[in-house]
């Protein structure tokens, strides 16, 4: 949907990592419930990459793809990698309104545009329709630049006022200038997403929202992605015992601490070299060893630290020429 069209989907390294973590998460949730029986609903983009991945790794075979761009929709029909995806030329708002979610569902609303207000409303409406065991994942633009600027008004003051009005009922009572700084903005959005989801549960007594993961990553734009499951209150403990998610270092069960999963954009040679130093060396030692920074001064260390911590889980992405 929109901005996603500009960067080839399969080359977005950090998004690919995030997708792998999603599959990892679903496998863990699979210890509690049979994930293969779920229906997956998402925005496939021209290549339907996620659909292929989820089908091959989790054997999910009921899938619905939503797409609003006419040309992308035609590309999907051409590219369709597996036959079990029902391709729909429809926007998520109308779909959520019409669909009854009677089957266990995994819904991923992967928004690329920055219209956060509408996306939060849609999140609430989605949760209103979900039931016990349903999993949903919301990806939103977490770049405070999307809040804009106005001549003559101090930047952060202006952005705080725009954020206050866009998040509305879902935002905290007070949004100050610190909240819209690039490092804090994802946290602000996460709290709004959690709020919208919880408000969606008002009419569903006996059910609770269990946050699962919250990541920020960027392949160009900083994105926030939040995943949660709806559970019957009495099932919370069993869910926790079976999935053992509190022992998984990527989980975010309190819905508060966003984890950054962006890693440096290595060349093949760099990656092989860095991996040869692991697990013994830490990020600082590796940067010393290389003698230069990968990425800008501000973020290079954090990116390397992410890699050191999670390198075993990161896939190899490289270009092949056919």
């Amino acid at each position: 949907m929109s901005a996603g069209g500009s960067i080839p989907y399969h080359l977005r390294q950090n998004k690919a990592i995030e997708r792998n973590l999603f599959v990892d998460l679903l496998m863990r949730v699979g210890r509690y419930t049979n994930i293969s029986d779920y229906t997956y609903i998402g925005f496939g983009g021209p290549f339907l990459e996620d659909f292929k991945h989820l089908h091959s790794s989790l054997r999910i075979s009921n899938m619905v793809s939503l797409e609003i761009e006419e040309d992308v929709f035609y590309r999907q029909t051409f590219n369709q990698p597996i036959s079990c995806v029902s391709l729909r030329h429809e926007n998520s708002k109308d779909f959520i309104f019409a669909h009854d979610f009677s089957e266990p569902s995994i819904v991923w609303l992967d928004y690329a545009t920055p219209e956060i207000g509408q996306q939060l409303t849609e999140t609430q409406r989605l949760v209103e329709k979900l039931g016990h065991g349903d999993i949903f994942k919301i990806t939103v633009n977490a770049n405070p630049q999307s809040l804009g600027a106005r001549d003559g008004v101090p930047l952060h003051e202006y952005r705080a006022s725009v954020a206050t009005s866009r998040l509305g009922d879902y935002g905290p009572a007070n949004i100050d200038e610190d909240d819209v700084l690039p490092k804090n903005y994802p946290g602000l959005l996460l709290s709004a997403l959690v709020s919208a989801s919880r408000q969606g549960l008002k009419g569903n007594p006996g059910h609770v929202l269990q946050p699962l993961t919250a990541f920020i990553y960027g392949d160009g734009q900083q994105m926030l992605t939040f995943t949660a499951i709806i559970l019957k209150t009495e099932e919370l403990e069993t869910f926790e015992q079976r999935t053992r998610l509190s022992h998984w270092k990527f989980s975010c069960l309190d819905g508060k601490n966003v984890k950054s999963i962006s890693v440096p954009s290595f060349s093949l040679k760099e990656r092989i070299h860095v991996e040869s130093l692991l697990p013994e060396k830490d990020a600082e030692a590796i940067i010393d060893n290389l003698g230069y920074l990968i990425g800008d001064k501000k973020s290079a260390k954090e990116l390397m630290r992410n890699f050191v911590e999670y390198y075993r889980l990161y896939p190899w992405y490289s270009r092949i020429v056919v």
Partner: protein
Amino acid sequence: MTKKTASAFPAKRFFVEMLTRDIELQDAILDLLDNCVDGAMRQNKGKSGSKKHPYKGFTAWIDFDGNSFTLKDNCGGIPRSLAEDYAFRMGRQDANRDPELPTVGVYGIGMKRAIFKMGRAATVTSQTETDEGFVVEIDSNWLTDDNNWNLPIEASPDALDRPGTIIEVTELMDGISRLLSNDTDFHKELEKAISAYYGYIIEKGFTVILNGKKVAPVQVELLFDNDSSDKKEGIIPYGYKFVSDDGISVELVVGLYKSLPTEAEEQEALVGSPTTERAGWTIVCNDRVVLYADKSRVTGWGEAGVPSYHTQFISIAGVVIFRSNDPGKLPITTTKRGIDGNSELYLNVKEHMREGMKLYTDFTNKWKGASTEQNSLKSKTAASSVESIIDMLSDRNWSKVSKGMGGTKFKPTLPTPKEDDPIKQIRFSRKKSQIALVSEYLFENSTTAAGEVGAQCFDDVLRKASK
């Protein structure tokens, strides 16, 4: 013939189940906070404290989860005699507990109603400066026994380390437990409500700590054109003031709290995006906000010539401040979060609310669509708090109101689009893809609002045509 009597003895169920239906959890908790503030006010009586921050040093700590609710304060505590005679009675006989204080408690029902709204068991611990501390326990057995209307007060000399009260409610009702466990985001709802309803009191020094976090105040601010040279023309709020013979004072201001909405903002509001609803009327009685951002007939929208609230009016806000040492004279309902619409005082004030509001709805209608000149309106104004607006207006030209209850009012002359060359609206429709294409060409992004794209096209041609 023997004379028989009919039993008029009350049942506890009446209080516990019926009264609690009239109030929402949020309002019940605000009722408890009202008691804290009334307590602080009593502590201040006769002392010469800060006029600007009279509640400084007074704090209420609210903590809750799915199992219990606790409110602790340092606002003076409940005197022993009061506890014995009526703090725990269902309703107060004597309405004049504080004849010289602008409190809001009148009926003596708030604490009990709040406790029963939440749970079936409670402990109230309190201590004042002069009396020794005490503990009162209410349990679910007592609640079902209609013959026992007494609650034992247990002396507890060292109940608290300073004067104050702790109310702990347990055995929470099912629905309440769910709300307090934050499954539906009640925590934030309450925080927002405290920010708004206690904005004026927190600004005056009172502190509320909600689950460990200090609540920041939110107050209505209105735009004020400081440059207005003749002191009457410009974006200046409408004002009204009145003091009655029996000591009720009223201050009213209405104006714009933000610049007029753009087309995109109006569209967002129309499709139900979550905008912060600060538009509408806020009514404050003795520092307590009793009605917040109201947009209904209660505050004059949609009656006597004022249009009904509509998204184009999302910039209009007004505040009415009532003060009286006799809270019974204030136009509030028993829940203290609503207005008694039949009060003569309120009906009189409402006429001025409508007059000021009409001024601004007309203004909004006149400027609708006039985007270029609208921009020039924005740059000259600054947001100011209601109190400073009343100060700023004080040296301007107020006129006497002869009808109704009297008082004085300030009626600004709002800027109008130039009469000799009036603004006209152009309306036309084009395909979405074409608008996106032109938007990309003009603004290098395809998501600029259609109205702005159209206006830019016109302005570009206008520039060429005027050469």
